């Protein structure tokens, strides 16, 4: 039996509020599926499941705030479900899951005498109009369907509805659902976001011996490359400098792995995958830095569309749990309306942050000629427990070099 727990979405998180379930008991779930929505200090997060199996039942109802690590649902793992003889049955995927679930009931009833009736009970509850249900609460078919869809286990919350003779109606489900969502939303506010940032940044400054480096990079060629690329493209296919920055940092990290990974339990664990956390400003205050996964392996177009998707979801307050915890480095850019230089604070357990200032026009000497060029200050905040200034300088220089050959970023 597996349990789906309230995840820790960063060192600073203590509790979360379950907003809604996106699956129903009896649904087949696979690793990576988004099955629940949780409200934290950082906003509304879509939570992924880490096991393959069948969702057996909910242990926590939407609207409740529970500490990190609290079991939210029970999952019958695939290997617990399927007797080996079934593995070769050759049935199609969906019918496979169903028949296996049915088998699991028998299997667990036989092998776990202490809880013989539990899985059976749940499978019975799944059936529409089962007599057990009506004994406790009378509910209209429409209300039952709606509740099921919303993942609300009405039976364990309500004892009476507002209909004739206490029948639970569709209106009751709608009212219940909006109360739950409002309750959860209210707990996430600006103060919560501020607190989360305060906790993470205090920990960073307490634990991480930062060192800082800065370099000025001529971005004229990179901007020309973008202008000519975008000239013939419709708006939805245009690239932004921000996408180029993510790609450049990911490319440079391939050569300098000591800036990519996590510092855990007193030692640095370099990460093979390069997940670039992109600091995104939230209107009204605060910021988050969700990860763009495998940034080094994607071309500029897919990085751009992933970034656009990420920004839209962050602004709408909805992103995934893995995006919050997976980043192996952070890129923080001030964009076009800011100041020249940004000195970042590393987001633990990461070990580096690349800060990018706003581009400025300045006189610049190249090939012995004074010219007006567009320049950007790149900074590196890095963890001195893991790397030294020499390597840091080479890493930062590599970023500048790559930006002089923007064509090479196409692949």
């Amino acid at each position, binding site marked *: 039996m597996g349990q789906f727990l309230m995840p820790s979405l960063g060192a600073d998180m203590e509790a979360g509020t379950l907003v809604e379930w996106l699956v129903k008991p009896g649904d087949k779930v696979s690793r990576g599926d988004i099955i629940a929505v949780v409200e934290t200090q950082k906003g509304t997060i879509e939570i992924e499941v880490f096991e393959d199996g069948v969702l057996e039942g909910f242990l926590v109802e939407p609207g409740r705030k529970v500490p990190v690590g609290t079991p939210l649902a029970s999952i019958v793992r695939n290997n617990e479900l399927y007797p080996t003889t079934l593995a070769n049955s050759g049935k199609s995927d969906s019918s496979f899951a169903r028949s296996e679930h049915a088998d699991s009931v028998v299997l667990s009833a036989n092998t776990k005498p202490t809880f013989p009736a539990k899985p059976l009970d749940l499978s019975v509850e799944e059936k529409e109009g089962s007599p057990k249900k009506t004994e406790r609460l009378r509910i209209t078919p429409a209300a039952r369907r709606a509740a099921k869809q919303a993942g609300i286990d009405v039976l364990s919350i309500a004892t009476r509805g507002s209909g004739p003779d206490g029948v639970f109606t569709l209106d009751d489900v709608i009212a219940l659902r909006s109360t739950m969502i409002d309750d959860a939303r209210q707990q996430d506010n600006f103060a919560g976001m501020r607190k989360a940032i305060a906790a993470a940044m205090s920990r960073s400054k307490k634990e991480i011996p930062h060192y800082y480096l800065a370099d000025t990079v001529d971005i004229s060629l990179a901007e020309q490359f973008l*202008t000519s690329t*975008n000239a013939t493209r*419709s*708006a939805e296919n*245009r690239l932004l*400098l921000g996408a180029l920055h993510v790609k450049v940092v990911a490319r440079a990290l391939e050569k300098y792995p000591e800036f990519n990974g996590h510092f855990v339990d007193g030692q640095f664990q370099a990460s093979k995958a390069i997940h670039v956390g992109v600091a995104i400003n939230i209107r009204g205050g605060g910021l988050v830095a969700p990860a763009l996964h495998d940034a080094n392996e994607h071309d500029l177009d897919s990085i751009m569309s992933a970034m656009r998707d990420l*920004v839209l979801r962050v602004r709408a307050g909805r992103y995934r749990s893995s995006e919050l915890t997976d980043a192996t480095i952070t890129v923080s850019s001030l964009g*076009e*309306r800011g100041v020249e230089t940004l000195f970042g604070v590393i987001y633990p357990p990461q070990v580096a942050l690349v800060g990018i200032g706003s581009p400025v026009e300045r006189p610049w000497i190249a090939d012995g000629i004074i010219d007006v060029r567009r320049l950007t200050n790149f900074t590196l905040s890095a963890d001195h427990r893991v790397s030294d200034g020499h390597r840091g300088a080479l890493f930062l220089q590599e970023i500048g070099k790559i930006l002089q050959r923007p064509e090479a970023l196409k692949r």
Partner: protein
Amino acid sequence: MSEMEKILTEELYRIAPDIDVAEIDREAELREEFDIDSMDFLNLVMALSKKLKIEMPEADYPDMMTFTKMVEYLEQHSK
């Protein structure tokens, strides 16, 4: 408010719901007035070009820098 002003206001509201169009300086830079970054601006251009079925090339961005200029640009191009 003209039809085009309404369309622009609506799209800006989607991106910057906290800003009231009635209170902005229509001759000042749109990005400053609405506190929008280049990604927001691109999303605005995307939404407008889709809605009005017009091309809004990057080379024309200087003609879209203020609320008033953007409205003029949209009126000229959506014939």
